[in-house]
């Protein structure tokens, strides 16, 4: 339609009235859309869609190889009566809680230690991160061997140091309680480097002059940590711990590599249970229901660690003024 007038009045008209193609090429919003296409395609097809599909699947009796029919919340009602599911939920919460607390405490301590001036500082910091670099499954295999019943090196060390009688074996991964402790230990071991290194990055932004001023005012070691380090570190602690809690709660590989949920289902996390029921057992609907049941916990964890720590930051900001 505009073609005629365009042809009649050349250059100037064309500039003031861009063609549709120009608009698609130059307009901010269209251009933005083009740039977003690859990322959005991946995220919509393989993230958003499965997320919705998972919730729908959790309300069907779908099995591998056959489509399901809608059965409402029957899967969830069934799960609420299922001892293994309740046990897995309880253990997932314990696992997350205990491991996160230890990871945080030791990680922060390690970060403070690494923040000291010392020879070979760079190399030591690089070494600390190695457990984080090595694939979880592969280090879990090493732990599996360390916690082997017959040939455990820990048992051997205890035996040599005289803490247990010679010939006595500890059934690390065979006894329910010990197995739970072992996997929690492995998780703490694996999580510390990430927390230590990110907190160290936060520590390095704290100006030393604050500590000098506080020392001149007679602050003790603990006071300097409590009233300088901790408040200034809170924002980064909030983020790091949110991530840590999230990834601990949804952990799968460590458990699968070390115990596969055993002995007697004692170390099942919700993720491993949902794999066992959904993929190995073929009851996709039930597996999806277990996976979906994690979502409220995740949201709660994000809320608590995020808002809880944020508010404390404001309070301390006021108190420090």
């Amino acid at each position: 339609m505009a073609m005629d007038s365009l042809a009649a009045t050349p250059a100037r008209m064309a500039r003031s009235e861009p063609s549709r193609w120009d608009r698609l090429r130059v307009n901010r919003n269209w251009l933005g859309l083009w740039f977003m296409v690859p990322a959005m395609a991946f995220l919509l097809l393989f993230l958003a869609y499965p997320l919705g599909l998972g919730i729908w699947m959790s309300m069907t009796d779908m099995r591998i190889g056959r489509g399901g029919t809608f059965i409402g919340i029957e899967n969830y009602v069934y799960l609420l009566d299922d001892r293994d599911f309740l046990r897995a939920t309880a253990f997932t919460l314990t696992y997350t809680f205990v491991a996160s607390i230890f990871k945080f405490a030791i990680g922060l301590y390690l970060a403070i230690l690494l923040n000291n001036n010392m020879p070979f500082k760079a190399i030591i910091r690089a070494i600390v991160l190695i457990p984080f670099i090595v694939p979880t499954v592969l280090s879990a295999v090493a732990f599996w061997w360390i916690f082997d019943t017959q040939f455990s090196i820990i048992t051997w060390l205890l035996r040599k140091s005289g803490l247990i009688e010679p010939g006595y074996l500890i059934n690390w991964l065979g006894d329910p309680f010990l197995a739970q402790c072992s996997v929690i230990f492995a998780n703490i071991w694996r999580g510390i480097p990430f927390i230590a290194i990110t907190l160290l990055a936060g520590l390095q932004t704290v100006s030393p002059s604050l500590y000098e001023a506080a020392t001149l005012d007679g602050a003790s070691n603990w006071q300097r940590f409590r009233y300088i380090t901790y408040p200034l570190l809170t924002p980064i602690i909030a983020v790091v711990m949110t991530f840590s809690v999230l990834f601990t709660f949804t952990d799968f590989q460590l458990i699968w590599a070390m115990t596969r949920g055993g002995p007697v289902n004692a170390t099942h996390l919700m993720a491993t249970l949902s794999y066992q029921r959904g993929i190995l057992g073929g009851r996709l609907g039930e597996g999806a229901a277990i996976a979906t049941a994690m979502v409220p916990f995740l949201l709660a964890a994000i809320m608590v660690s995020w808002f809880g720590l944020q508010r404390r930051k404001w309070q301390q900001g006021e108190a420090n003024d």
Partner: protein
Amino acid sequence: MTDAALKAAQAPLTDNREGMSYLETLPRKVVTVYLPLFIILVVLLFPFYWMVITSVKPDAQLLDLDSSNPLWVVSPTLQHIEKLLFGSAYPRWLFNTMIVATVATFLSIFASVLAAYAITRIRYKGAATVGGLIFLAYLVPPSILFIPLSAVIHTYGLFDTPFALILTYPTILIPFCTWLLMGYFKTIPYELEECALIDGASRWQILVRIVLPLAVPGLISAFIFAFTLCWNEFIYALTFISSDHNKTVPVAIISNFVDGDIFRWGSLMAGALIGSLPLVILYAFFVEHYVSAMTGAVKE
């Protein structure tokens, strides 16, 4: 400052950290810093030491803790590694992992560069919201997605092909890389782009000729970190791959080496060791990029 130093010299008990570390005496530092640090490092590194030792130990020593010190190896052997490399499909698995990780990483970086540039620089309508949504996508863990995703993979006919992994890994990587690159792009001055616009460059030219060369450190960080995440990935690879010759190293180690064989430990540890080596070597070359990737993604 000099007064404080004098005072501290007279009373060495004033323990000062950080900027005042020169005031600390060595013995004190040994107890408060070096000793705890040493203990933590030993615990952190012991599993790797144990991995290495086990993978070169002869079977007889592996299964007899009492005749020789198990913490050391008397006559090291390469038989486990040899068995692994020439007597199993391990090279094939290593190759699979490498291919999947490389392709998925390149795909994700490509998509993330475009997305991050659009969000930070083109600033289309709703860019901030999309940025927030991408961050939320970062928080969606694979372990709640794998069951519906396996249904999706079946529908698309991708089950048990490398494409199942190549196409699903970017969902983990894109949110992370986009977020990281957004941070880098924000630090590039606007004026550079304005100059290029005036000289008649298109958005694409600006991105390729001006922004990307300046964001190389960010690209390296994103690349290395994404590659590590791919190599590390387990649950998708376990669920979407069933035949032996398509498996990745972590899955193959868990499912193919674990049989009733009591002599499996040597090869198992050798497999774990060789499977981690590429990442450790990569890490050794790019430590700073690694740390900046980790902290950069957290700080944003």
